[in-house]
């Protein structure tokens, strides 16, 4: 199975003998030992350090369908190198646009995303309820809010409910991970460790969804729940809605509760709290393990990785758009 490669060290990545060569560089511009990355095993690249590369490399990566995701010094997601679409399908494209422009069709899909997302959040809370974390109150409120989802007629309205659900959900975080105090979600920039962790993980989840979308016929720019904007792949945000509770939140809970991530892994800057490089590495390692981790799929009856699960979700979405099968989001059962 192809793997993601994470580049933390600054260095130079180049095309060499039809494969990739990475030469790390230290502060004094001394070159380290070159590492050859087997092109056949690379699924995508995550660039956290500063990377030297030329267009020959990008041509080569593009030909091999390898996406590159960039993150800046403040660990914000800055963008992706998205190779030319290789799986175009006109019919699906037309259907996707039609589903977007028809308010009825759009809202059904949007509702499903929220419904499933909320369901998976509830599952998380119930899991911790069974572990004496007393999240009963939040569970009740969210269950009430979920009932409203199917009565919505506009996407804005739906987003409002989603916001309320998230707020209640996040308020339960203090009970689940008491080591880090959490006073509500803050973005741009996050000011406390837990917000920094959530921001960082959500971003990676988004890139993972984008990666999987690339390998399907779907157009990542036409979305249903989020408003399709310019210069962004908003369908990845829609799909991420389902997987954030399953992948991101669970990862955060286990990292914090097992004390893999501690206060020392964060650095405080003016008005912002960010993960240090050591922390970032721990999170990325755990994330990578999580994505390659497998579960036995109930419908398929075989083991699939979480990464593949995201792709299956995209397939289901395409089936819905082509009116083959009604879309039903992935609900966790454990």
């Amino acid at each position, binding site marked *: 199975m192809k793997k993601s*490669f994470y580049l933390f060290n600054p260095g130079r990545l180049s095309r060499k003998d039809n*494969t990739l060569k990475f030469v790390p560089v230290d502060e004094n511009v001394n070159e380290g030992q070159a590492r050859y990355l087997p092109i056949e*095993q690379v699924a995508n690249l995550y660039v956290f350090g500063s990377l030297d590369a030329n267009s020959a490399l990008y041509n080569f990566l593009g030909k091999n369908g390898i996406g590159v995701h960039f993150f800046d010094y403040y660990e914000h997601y800055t963008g992706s190198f998205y190779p030319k679409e290789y799986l175009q399908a006109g019919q699906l494209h037309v259907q996707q646009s039609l589903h977007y422009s028809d308010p009825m069709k759009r809202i059904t899909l949007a509702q499903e995303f929220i419904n499933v997302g909320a369901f998976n959040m509830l599952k998380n809370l119930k899991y911790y309820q069974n572990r004496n974390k007393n999240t009963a109150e939040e569970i009740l409120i969210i269950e009430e809010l979920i009932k409203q989802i199917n009565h919505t007629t506009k996407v804005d309205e739906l987003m409002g409910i989603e916001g309320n659900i998230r707020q209640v959900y996040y308020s339960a975080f203090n009970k689940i991970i008491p080591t880090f105090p959490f006073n509500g979600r803050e973005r741009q920039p996050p000011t406390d460790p837990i917000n920094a962790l959530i921001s960082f993980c959500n971003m990676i989840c988004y890139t993972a969804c984008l990666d999987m979308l690339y390998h399907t016929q779907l157009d990542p720019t036409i979305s249903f729940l989020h408003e399709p904007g310019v210069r962004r792949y908003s369908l990845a945000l829609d799909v991420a809605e389902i997987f954030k509770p399953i992948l991101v939140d669970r990862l955060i809970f286990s990292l914090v509760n097992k004390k893999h991530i501690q206060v020392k892994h964060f650095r405080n800057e003016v008005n912002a709290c960010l993960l240090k490089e050591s922390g970032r590495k721990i999170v990325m390692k755990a994330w990578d393990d999580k994505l390659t981790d497998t579960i036995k799929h109930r419908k398929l009856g075989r083991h699939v990785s979480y990464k593949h699960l995201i792709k299956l979700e995209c397939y289901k979405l395409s089936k819905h758009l082509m009116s083959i099968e009604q879309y039903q989001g992935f609900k966790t059962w454990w």
Partner: protein
Amino acid sequence: MYIILVYDINTKRGGKMLKLCRKYLNWIQNSVFEGELTNIQLENLKADANEIMQEGDSLIIFNNKSKKWLNKEIIGQEKSSINNFL
């Protein structure tokens, strides 16, 4: 499938083989590679290797269902890590 590949090849063709193997697998030691491949990738690798090899050359591929059945112990210096965190 998890692969360990070793070759013993005439130095004239050694460079070619090295470049080919680097495309598919992680280099760990002189003329030793390891990594995860699909069946098709392995067939491609074998076909390409066949093109390069001539009389007296040898290529051995050990394969394993999964990495978890493989114990790897490094004594002395690790020539190259195969970690995907660089």
